């Protein structure tokens, strides 16, 4: 208990107001987040809830998505959250090269989501298979044929947490997703 108190007292608030300078250029997190929240507010009332599905990724994309929730990025303060069930989700985040084995699971997950809903793909794999583009086991259909085209793609291998966050904003500002 003492260790906890000591550490929470001395460490203070770790959440960053600014992006570290040595990470590729992207706007201040704080600024990004506030704008994002405004857009989300107009679309979803209070918040944007995301459900992630790995369709054959290497795991690094997931790791970066998980990092969004750590105290340094703290994505929840902007009203964005990752939920445990597709029934609670507004958007589906798809990573990975889309293995044939995951086609059915991906479809079922999407079908379980209530509308309005849209799809976001994260990582080069999810776009065109990335390094696995010509593999025999990549589903021939592609994400767009199974759950509809992604409205936003975030490139990178893996994209950094900052990139994911700022991509979300840039997108929501310019092309609000249509109701499906």
């Amino acid at each position, binding site marked *: 208990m003492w260790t906890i108190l000591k550490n929470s007292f001395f460490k203070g608030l770790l959440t960053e107001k600014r992006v570290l300078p040595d990470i590729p250029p992207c706007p201040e997190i704080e600024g990004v987040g506030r704008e994002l929240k405004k857009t989300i507010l107009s679309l979803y009332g209070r918040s944007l809830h995301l459900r992630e599905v790995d369709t054959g*990724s*290497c795991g690094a994309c997931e790791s970066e998505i998980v990092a969004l929730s750590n105290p340094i990025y703290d994505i929840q303060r902007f009203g964005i959250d990752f939920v445990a069930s597709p029934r609670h989700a507004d958007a589906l985040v798809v990573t*990975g090269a889309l*293995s044939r084995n995951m086609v059915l699971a991906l479809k079922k997950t999407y079908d379980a989501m209530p509308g309005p809903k849209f799809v976001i793909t994260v990582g080069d794999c999810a776009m065109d298979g990335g390094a*696995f583009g010509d593999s025999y086991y990549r589903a021939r259909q592609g994400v767009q044929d199974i759950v509809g085209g992604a409205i936003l793609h975030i490139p990178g291998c893996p994209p950094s947490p900052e990139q994911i966050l700022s991509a979300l904003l840039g997108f929501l500002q310019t092309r609000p997703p249509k109701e499906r």
Partner: protein
Amino acid sequence: MKIFSGVIEELRAQGVEILEVLESHPQEAVIRIKTEDFHRACLFMHKRLSSAVMAMFAADERKAKNAFEIFCVFLSREFQKWCILAADIPQDRPAFPSLARDIHSASFFEREIREMFGLEPEGHPDKRRLHLHDEVWPNGLFPLRKDFVVFGPVAPNGAAYCFNRVLGEGIFEVPVGPVHAGIIGPGHFRFSAAGEPIVNLEIRLGFTHRGVEKVFEHKTLDEAVRMAECVAGDTAFGHSWAFCQAIEKASALKVPARALYERAICLELERLYNHFAGIGGIALDVGFSFAAQFASVLKERVLRLNQRLTGSRYLKGVNRIGGVRRGFSRQDIQALLCEILSISGDHKELKQMLLTSVSFMDRVDETGVLRQKTARDLGVVGLAARASGVAMDLRKVFPDVYAGSDFRLITQERGDVLSRLRVRMEEVEESARLIIYFADRLADLAGAVAANFPLAAAGCALGAVEAWRGPVLYWVKVADGQVDRCKVVDPSFHNWPGLAFAVLGNIIPDFPVCNKSFDLSYAGNDL
């Protein structure tokens, strides 16, 4: 080496006809034997070297000699050597006697060979496919054969996967997955429970199968290094090093000391960030959020340090064949030392926070026990094995760059979640110490960071690196300057069966914490 030839003599005395012994590298002996002796020879080596099957795989050599080749890899700690038994399987009789009934660690490898090459392990008790799910893939189509061509839609064979069922009064099944509640890879877990305790857990994986080994074929070596980084994202560095090591061995390339120290630093950094993720995950899964968040901050700090040193948070693009791409500057090393010291200070706090919390200890102590005997029988490797008292670490067996660092092998005896946690914590301390040691060495070194690599010679070799989860193995065969066959073994492949045993008798709500304490890769297993 002399002594090892004694083992070969013993093998011969068993009545095994030895066709050829190849020792192209001091750490590796390839023993060619006849197909009919394969089973006997493997059993002998398994006992004699007291080694699990570390890898078993086939290669399609029908073009060259009308036969498939089959390899079985054992590790001799005593002789510090990889011992590879090899035999030809004529193409007109594509079958071999199964080892699975005698050596459990061969079981999954044989199933893999069966579905990928169509070679029948005769007498194997379980012939279900691992990666190519029946729901989407037909029978009789073997992707790793050389004459396999990728084409459009395939008709599935229509069969449904057959789970082992536990019958009896009051037994119920809980199916979970493939899509899980957290942000993790996909896998299907089927629990059979009687009241609270789990009486059987069946794990069905393969959902992230992407055909990695096939994709490797015909890649140039530089492309293949990049590929190896995409096999298991959390072990990107371990995989690329193991691949490079295989090529370097095959072409007898001497890697400069500077590159070796840098590689070792990167490997330990990878261990650090993953161990923090593991420690945090264990805390999170028992509901201790403060510690979990504390650990996630430490993980982020290591990732940023990686970015600072190498330009990649996951240490991608560091390795190249013959060495590394870029040398650390003095400032880099300075920054590394400062950050590591500060991180180890925080780690002490984290450790104290966890180990002094009664409610936390209550959840992890005696939970998910993997007994040493079980771990040995299943051929569990790496961190999970060390937590069960199996003192095995490639950094000890093949010290190479670790020689002189007084590397301390960390083990625990009880094999529960707490033991796996303690191994992580102590390894964090040891890794921090090693990084400082290597960085000190590196600071005094000048010179090239990569050996000159002429065009790859044809040949094959085994590369192996003790990554954070356990040994990563790459067996690579090069032809015409390209990869001809690449077998990848991620430690997860050995360890998933271990998890299925560790949870027995535990309650389902404790499964997440057991799972996290093993922290296995879906991508590395499914390939």
